[in-house]
């Protein structure tokens, strides 16, 4: 099963390779990984998407906690959480297709971040399902290039 795991780590060189080395060394898989600094200069945050049965996910979490530079590990999957991904996509669009691209962008609340006479570059944010849906539609028109982030995730505040 797919799991989204949130990991706080020391913001130090080499820490990311400890985390990824753990996954490759123990044969765990990583579907996606997002890393960036946080408000606290000393802490970086990793959102990690992985898959495995219960025993494997339990090992992944325990092994992550065992790394000296890992401060906190939370499996967000069983909790109520928000998940977002972003993609930049360069679409080939000429003549009649230009309007079609903009229409799709509008429906899915994408932003146009770059325009040329025969391409549009769109920024899409949302769940991976939404991204897949948009990309599916744009593919019929003609995608030149796509880059995607992994998932970012955050727990929702519990409502009283």
């Amino acid at each position, binding site marked *: 099963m797919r799991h989204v795991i949130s990991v706080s780590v*020391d913001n130090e060189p*080499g820490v990311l*390779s*400890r985390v990824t*080395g753990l996954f490759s*060394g123990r044969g765990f898989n990583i579907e996606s990984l997002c890393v960036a600094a946080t408000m606290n200069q000393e802490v970086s945050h990793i959102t990690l998407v992985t898959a495995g049965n219960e*025993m494997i996910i*339990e*090992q992944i979490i*325990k*092994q992550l*906690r*065992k790394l*000296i*530079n*890992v*401060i*906190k590990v939370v499996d967000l999957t069983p909790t109520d959480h928000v998940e977002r991904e972003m993609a930049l996509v360069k679409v080939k669009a000429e003549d009649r297709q230009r309007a079609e691209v903009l229409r799709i962008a509008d429906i899915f609340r994408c932003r146009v971040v770059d325009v040329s006479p025969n391409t549009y570059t769109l920024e899409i944010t949302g769940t991976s399902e939404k991204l897949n849906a948009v990309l599916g539609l744009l593919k019929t028109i003609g995608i030149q290039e796509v880059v995607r982030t992994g998932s970012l995730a955050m727990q929702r505040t519990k409502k009283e």
Partner: protein
Amino acid sequence: MKLTGSQIFLKCLEREGVKHIFGFPGGVVLDIYDELTRAPFIKHFLVRHEQGAAHAADGYSRASGKVGVCLVTSGPGATNTVSGIASAYMDSIPMVVFTGQVPTPLIGNDAFQEVDIVGITRPCTKHNYLVKHVDDLARIIHEAFHIARTGRPGPVLVDLPKDVIQGQTVPKFPERVRIKSYNPNYHANPKQIKKALDLILKAHRPVIYAGGGVILSKASEELTKFAQSLEIPVTTTLMGLGGFPAPHRLWLGMLGMHGTYFANMSVHHADVLIAIGSRFDDRVTGKIEEFAPHAKIIHIDIDPTSISKNVVVDIPIVGDCQDALSQLNELVVAQVPTPRELSPAHQAWLAEIDQWKREHPLTYDRASGDLKPQFVVEKLYELTQGNAIISTEVGQNQMWAAQFYHINRPNRWLSSGGLGCMGYGFPAAIGAQVACPDDLVIDIAGDGSIQMNIQELATAVEYDLPVKVAILNNSFLGMVRQWQQLFYDRRYSQTPMWSPDFVKLAEAYGALGLRAEKPEEVEPVIREAINTRKPVLMDFRVAPEECVMPMVPAGAPMHKMLLT
């Protein structure tokens, strides 16, 4: 007052109580070696290969319970320690390895003797550090020792660039370690302890399966008390040998691939299995789906990743063996009347085990007239009255040592279990001899393994360390040959092995060399070795095609053992 990096380094070692280090010098650590001449409180042992330094530090640690320390130069000095670090890592042995590194501005430039040792050892250290600034040195060294010895112990590597070693600062030596993300849990949850005892008291066929964790947490007295008070038979892993006194009526011997028939049968038929500081290694479980199939399992371990890694357990207890066992013992005193009246089922269980012991004791063909390796180990046991510190190499020699030298105390058995690193035993014995100068230390060796670190004979001779090596010389890489015999139709591909004349070799090094070719020569050779105050190499020409039995073939369940 300002101190240099090397001065801070040595001050730190002094503060950690380090008295002995094993090492080998080179360019980037010249300053430390220079400073060493002004540090009378530390004795440095110059090995002949850095792998030897790492294993010696490991053996020192296993025999003394302290943190072993080694010091090597950058590049090849550092890479040579890797097998030793990986051995210590697999067996959870606390040590700190200091490697020199090229100056920080050169790192990443393929500088002379540069290697990314932090990158190389990331997966085989508990943690490692590259010290980037001399201001961080004292803190990092203190953290390194702390991490190595606490929680589940393990090796920590500290990489020291030359400019850090030469840099100057006014050091602050931290009194306490503060690492926000590292807080091993020693105290076992009393609720889980209570649950465990309730289950144990209801058991008809309980067995304790103890491991290296009992040695590491110095819990063997508590373990013995616990087993005795409830009359529970005990088996240990290879790593747990010495954690329970071997000549005890509740002792089952080692379990696993080359464990005793009765240990494996007991675990297979147990209804409650109490795992204490052991990690369900595949050499122990065999076919995992059929391991202890009738048992509810209790598992005490300080490392949460050890629990439910291979086998899902019923009562997990995260904590220190000693803490958990003393809680259990207190509960037993409070709850169980002494002497405990055993249920008829429990009595029948002990009788059944005795029956297994009688049916299939550990044995070998004593009547053949050949010099059998098991006989040599038995004689070593007899003539040392079980009082030696035993290290082993890897292979058949290791298994026969485990089976026939009955270790009765903790910290007297040093063997590379997890990595199975040939060449471990001899330098480890040297380390143990440094830690315990008054003890008799014997490396039970194979003709193959001993040649992997034979050069350390020079170290033993130079420092007057009277280590004994008993080579069970079968002219084969015996353990591999055994598999070829049993599973590859006796095609002995690259396992017959020529060796030099070990007696002459010993003499060339200034040690004593002795040889026995017949059973009756064994005793005089061992006696002479024991009575000689210098390193001795004993060459026992044993039966070449002897196999280690019992044996559980790979992938088979534990009760399906080959017995002959």
